[in-house]
């Protein structure tokens, strides 16, 4: 059971000792969050702290004085800036709306009231962007707990529900064009809990808490999931058991034609609905895998059942055998080149859940019980798959991994590796950072952990400033092959002092490992370095628990070791620029457009 699944009563009473225990864990990622609140935010922040600690962060908070969210953001943003937050969370509720229209408001006047409220919030976002320049999480609003116009409240231009719905829509429009602004859907969160369980007038009058403690917890869980997503810690893979998880019955005993799936009985419908839920996750970029104690051939027959929503091709990995499940899951992780800490495991059998949870660090194993009708809502409540933007990348990711699997099969047929690489017909676009890709570049710096030499994280603003200051060489690489477009998969960034280029960043997505893409990036980097009169490139490797795979990256690229720092085992490597000759053999390089 994870902290997020603790009974709330226990969490409230034991909070301090739980906090102490979580603080003892190693490798916590330090993060600074400014909470600008329109109500008392201490309870929310206390719960958020625990949830973030549980997710591997070590948060430090700034909280505005009671109700001073607007003042801190617009009038004295330097107070917030001085705290140097990585994130600002503006937490407001319907109590903070100032421009509600009178009930007699006409259709013609209605927009100006909403516009007035919107402009107040826009002033905050603009001011914070200028003074602080970090990501902003802004919640939208819950509907009024007591809509005085009843059903007409969301229809009449005088209704507060209508006002909130329109304001929320406009927040969404703003966020669509402002990459720094992330909307937290308080309207949905409050709806899930129910407004009567969300707002408690006694807590509001007594303590100025805008929510029940259940409400605070739901808000904190949601903020924690956004933070995980921002730092690339959302889950990527859903690993599923088969018997009594994806279908009813035991396929090995009952036979493929007897498993419970389809629309014939309520239980069959529930399994069908859960399969549909899994498929919808796959369509938005979550990889599906099977891990089941079964005979592989028989297990696969389950997906040939005419009523099965999921088909074999929907799974990026399939393990049906009699080995322990945690071993199978670790094999799946290796095959997909993803850390098992990005996995969620769903199994109706508590014994299997328990062994997987205890044997694999970081894997999420929600207690789904054994009632199929509840699986989807329990998985959903874990907020494992939160995302900040839904890009083409996400929508085609599952396909990319399928293509990877095909490549792996192809690989085995060639006499040597070079021949295989040639057969891929790869071409790369290697070009200077430009506005089209800034967001993707910033995103990659935050979510790449394995092939990442320095693990430096950059905000969008920081990436943009490397272009404007003229002192950096920043290149991105995109790779296409005969199976498809891998998208933007590599970033290198260095800053120049005199005739030396210091590499601040060198990262690559693991899905293009061993494709010589790093060699192509080096060629591109050296060519541009020569143009700027640079004589030496210094590469830095800073070890982390996750980037062991690149400890000899610079050595493989022909750099010489300069120093090894004893305490951290960080290494510095040097490359002579004038004597360098381009080395790319297997990738066609497209003509750069931006330099």
């Amino acid at each position, binding site marked *: 059971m994870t902290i997020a699944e603790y009974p*709330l*009563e226990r969490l*409230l*009473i*034991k*909070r*301090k*000792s739980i906090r*102490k225990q979580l603080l003892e864990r190693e490798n916590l990622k330090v993060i600074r969050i400014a909470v600008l609140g329109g109500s*008392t935010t*201490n*309870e929310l922040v*206390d719960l958020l702290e625990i949830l973030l600690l549980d997710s591997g962060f070590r948060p430090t908070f700034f909280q505005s004085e009671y109700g001073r969210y607007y003042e801190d953001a617009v009038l004295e943003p330097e107070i917030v800036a001085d705290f140097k937050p990585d994130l600002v969370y503006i937490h407001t509720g319907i109590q903070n709306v100032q421009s509600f229209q009178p009930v007699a408001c006409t259709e013609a006047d209605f927009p100006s009231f909403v516009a007035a409220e919107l402009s107040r919030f826009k002033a905050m976002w603009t001011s914070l962007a200028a003074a602080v320049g970090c990501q902003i999480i802004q919640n939208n609003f819950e509907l009024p707990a007591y809509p005085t116009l009843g059903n007409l409240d969301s229809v009449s231009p005088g209704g507060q529900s209508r006002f909130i719905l329109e304001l929320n829509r406009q927040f969404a429009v703003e966020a669509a064009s402002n990459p720094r602004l992330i909307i937290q859907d308080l309207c949905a969160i409050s709806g899930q809990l129910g407004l009567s369980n969300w707002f408690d007038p*006694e807590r509001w*009058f*007594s*303590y100025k*808490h805008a929510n029940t*403690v259940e409400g605070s917890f739901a808000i904190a869980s949601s903020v924690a999931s956004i933070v995980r997503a921002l730092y690339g810690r959302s889950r990527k893979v859903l690993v599923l058991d088969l018997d009594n998880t994806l279908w009813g019955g035991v396929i090995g005993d009952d036979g493929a034609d007897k498993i419970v799936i389809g629309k014939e009985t309520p239980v069959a419908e529930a399994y069908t609905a859960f399969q549909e839920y899994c498929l919808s996750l796959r369509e938005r970029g979550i990889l599906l895998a099977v891990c089941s104690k079964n005979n592989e051939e028989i297990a696969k027959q389950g997906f040939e059942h005419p009523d099965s929503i999921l088909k074999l091709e929907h799974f990026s990995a399939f393990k049906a055998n009699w080995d322990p499940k945690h071993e199978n899951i670790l094999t799946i992780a290796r095959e997909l080149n993803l850390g098992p800490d990005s996995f969620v495991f769903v199994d109706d059998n508590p014994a299997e859940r328990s062994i997987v949870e205890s044997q694999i660090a970081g894997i999420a194993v929600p207690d789904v019980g054994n009632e199929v009708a509840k699986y989807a809502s329990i998985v959903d409540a874990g907020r494992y798959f939160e995302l900040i933007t839904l890009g083409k990348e996400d929508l085609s990711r599952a396909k990319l991994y399928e293509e990877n699997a095909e490549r792996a099969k192809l690989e085995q047929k060639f006499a040597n590796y070079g021949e295989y690489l040639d057969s891929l017909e790869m071409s790369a676009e290697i070009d200077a950072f430009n506005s089209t890709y800034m967001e993707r570049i910033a995103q990659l710096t935050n979510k790449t952990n394995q092939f990442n030499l320095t693990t430096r994280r950059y905000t969008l603003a920081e990436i943009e400033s490397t272009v404007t200051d003229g002192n950096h060489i920043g290149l991105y690489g995109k790779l296409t092959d005969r199976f498809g477009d891998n998208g933007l998969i590599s970033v290198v960034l260095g800053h120049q002092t005199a005739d030396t280029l210091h590499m601040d960043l060198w990262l690559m997505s693991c899905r293009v490992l061993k494709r010589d893409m790093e060699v192509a990036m080096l060629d591109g980097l050296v060519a541009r370095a020569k143009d700027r009169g640079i004589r030496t490139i210094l590469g830095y490797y800073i070890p982390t628990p996750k980037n062991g795979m690149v400890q000899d990256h610079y050595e493989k690229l022909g750099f010489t070791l300069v120093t090894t720092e004893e305490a951290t085992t960080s290494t510095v490597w040097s490359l002579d620029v004038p004597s360098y000759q381009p080395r790319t053999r297997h990738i066609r390089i497209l003509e750069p457009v931006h330099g």
Partner: protein
Amino acid sequence: MDNLLAELQEIFRDIFDDDSLVLTRESSAATIDDWDSLTHTNLVTAIEKRYKVRFALGELQELKNVGDMIDLIQKKLAAK
């Protein structure tokens, strides 16, 4: 009655994270150092959850010390 005092002592020890805290009927915000308004909210919420009771608006302002609180909880439990 003594039971309730002992149980509350456990809750107080957890919330204040202080295993040596000794609770008596006379304990109050004046005698317990860290008992500020924020901790007070935490205490009230935790007690409400633990005993599945609700304190009405204004009821808590009447209380002078832990003894009063115990009496109030008992009254509410008896009325259930």
